[in-house]
């Protein structure tokens, strides 16, 4: 499924560049292969180029340079209506002057399908999203979540092999959004379609995707499965964009294979895993997830370094306790503790020692 060889890729971007004004590149040398049946999410802050990539794939924007291939066929010159790609828009784009049934029937009509075939397909697609009884409603008579389902059904009704989704859940409330995430994921698995999904919501990206491409500044910063992305970010941008993250700036003191010692600005030495540092003396930013920070020596691996910390405050969040610590001169170091029965309750001002497994501290490029 995650085959990266170009010949087998279902969708391939090759050296794609895009500029709107001839002055700046919005997309800089994009290379991306998407396998058949894969759920790939393009994640990034606004202006990172992810939506532009989606629009180039859909055919609404032309690539300034490079080639986009769909099922081995270059599609740069193919107009959108001949690409056969289903698309779900951010605002759903349900045609307001047509009923739900007419909306779903539209892609079948323009394909010249007979009336009876159309009706059967529309009914099937509506059942798929449990909206069968709304066939004669107008979009304006539906709630946001219902419109979302109809938009989904319309993008799927003509059996496209590739479906693009442009922040489709952005307008829904949190509960509904989580529910729809589950449903979209379920549909993807059931129909075996390829999905390219654009979002700026990292939770959504991690929950739904097979792989996530993190965009920033017109480039893919990291392309990986959700777990890898969260646990093994390859650079500081990804580490900070995905999830909560502690960062400790320092210099490489020692470097040997997959182990490194980093000396912090305040003089302490900590363990880290070198990721994109190559030499002693290099500046680095060590990234540690708050839930991987330990303050009980018995939980630490043997020989691990620990450094002194002062508790600034502890916030009770129900499932976890979130402690803010002063570490190495900065007081925004966060530690998350599970709220178990025997959990030690820390008090503000308390002096403790914290440490982590060397594999959880990643020495990344300094920002």
């Amino acid at each position: 499924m995650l085959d990266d060889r170009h010949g087998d890729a279902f969708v391939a971007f090759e050296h794609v560049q895009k500029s709107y004004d001839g002055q700046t590149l919005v997309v800089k040398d994009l290379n991306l292969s998407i396998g058949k049946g894969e759920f790939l999410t393009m994640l990034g802050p606004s202006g990172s180029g992810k939506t532009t990539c989606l629009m180039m794939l859909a055919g609404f924007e032309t690539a300034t340079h490079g080639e986009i291939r769909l099922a081995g066929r270059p599609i740069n010159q193919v107009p959108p209506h001949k690409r056969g790609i289903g698309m779900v828009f951010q605002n759903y784009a349900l045609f307001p002057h047509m009923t739900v049934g007419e909306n779903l029937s539209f892609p079948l009509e323009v394909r010249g399908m007979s009336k009876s075939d159309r009706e059967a397909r529309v009914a099937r697609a509506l059942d798929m999203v449990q909206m069968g009884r709304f066939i004669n409603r107008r979009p304006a008579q539906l709630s946001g979540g219902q419109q979302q389902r109809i938009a989904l059904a319309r993008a799927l009704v003509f059996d496209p092999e590739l479906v693009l989704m442009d922040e489709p859940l952005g307008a829904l409330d949190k509960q509904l959004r989580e529910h729809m995430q589950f449903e979209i994921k379920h549909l993807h698995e059931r129909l075996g379609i390829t999905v390219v999904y654009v979002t700026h919501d990292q939770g959504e990206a991690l929950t739904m995707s097979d792989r996530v491409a993190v965009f920033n500044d017109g480039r893919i910063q990291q392309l990986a499965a959700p777990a890898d992305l969260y646990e093994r970010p390859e650079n500081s941008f990804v580490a900070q964009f995905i999830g909560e993250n502690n960062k400790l700036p320092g210099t490489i003191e020692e470097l040997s294979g997959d182990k490194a010692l980093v000396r912090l600005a305040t003089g302490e030495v900590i363990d880290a895993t070198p990721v994109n540092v190559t030499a002693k003396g290099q500046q680095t930013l060590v990234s540690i997830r708050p839930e991987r920070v330990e303050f009980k020596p018995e939980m630490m691996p043997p020989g691990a370094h620990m450094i002194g910390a002062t508790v600034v405050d502890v916030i009770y969040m129900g499932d976890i306790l979130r402690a803010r610590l002063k570490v190495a001169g900065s007081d925004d170091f966060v530690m998350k503790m599970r709220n178990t029965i025997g959990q030690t309750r820390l008090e503000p001002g308390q002096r403790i020692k914290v440490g982590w497994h060397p594999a959880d501290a990643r020495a990344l490029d300094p920002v």
Partner: protein
Amino acid sequence: MANALDPHAAIATTAGGLTDGGLTDGALRTADGRPLVRALARSQSLARRRAFLLVLPLLAFILITFVVPIGQMLQRSFYNDGFSAHMPQLSQWFAGNPRGAEPDEAAWAALAADLQASAEARTIGIVGTRINYDVPGTRSLFTATGRQVRRGIEPPYQAALLEIDEDWGDPALWSAMREASSPLTGNFYLAALDRTRADDGSIQQVEERQQVYVMLFMRTFWLSLVITVITFVLGFPVAHLLATLPMRKSNLLMILVLLPFWTSLLVRTTSWMVLLQQQGVINDILTWLGVIGPDGRLQMIYNQTGTIIAMTHILLPFMILPLYSVMRTINPSYVRAARSLGATSWTAFRRVYFPQTLPGLGAGALLVFILAVGYYITPALVGGSSGQLISNMIAMHMTDTLNWSMAAALAALLLGAVLLLYWVYDRMVGIDNLKLG
């Protein structure tokens, strides 16, 4: 799980609750026992009175400057007492004798007495004018006879009056006087539809060479339709461009659209004369280019072509602005969605974009059509004889023939036709779908 997300269940419950509250025979009371309805009315009356005071000046203005004068004017179309008020005896004789009865000596006596009284009261001109509407050339008959009758007239009156002028024996004249003897009359409407009453009172068409009004009505509606279609064809792409161009460019274009709107009507019409006349700019250019010979200069003004060109230009903004305001609200993702669903750009336009512009198109078409139907100055200036519309005829009756009743009848028919069209539009498209910007 769909049920949990279904908001309609919740709406149904709320609606049920509301109905229950309203139907308990108005027995709802406030905490101190007063009927709720009265308490509500009291609490709102102050705000309502204040709102009414705010609109009062406008209401009075409309009443004084529109409703009253227009009502009075329209009243003239079916009520004209120019004859009946000043010829009471003859009017009474007409009331007492059936249509077709030969005027007997009593009738002639009544006529002579009325003429005498009217001539002394110096109202004979009003009477003559009234009859002159129906039988052209009779105003002088009344005034001349009036002068002689004032000096005295002896019976038998029939012979005496016929001696003064034998035209008094004309049955058409007597028929016209009978029609005018009642102040309430539908004859102006008949005339406005090229109909007249024969001597026996039956309705018939006027002579062919006198049939003008129906033809003018038809021409007015036809030209208005043509102008509406042309403004649509020309205005739609401009409105689309305005709605899709980046702000700075569209602002510039908008100024170009509005510029003719702000220019004086006379200036615009005059510039069309400069451009279109036979020795005008366009003909000069065409001749210079060799498209037409010096003898073949085109007649583009002082005919229907001139009316159409000048009116299209003037009415174009009324089509563009409502279209623009609707198009601006159409999200481009609709067309994109249609394209991604497999529609060619033409199909996407036809099935998805165009239907959404209909509220603007309806508003624009209705505006342009109604304005065109009542247009007066432009056709008067550049229309020649073949480009005159019904409004020019109304103006003629107001200012030249002074037959205000006729003008009122024509105007009432025009107003009726427009209201009818409005009603048809409402039934077919729905007025609430209208978007004027």
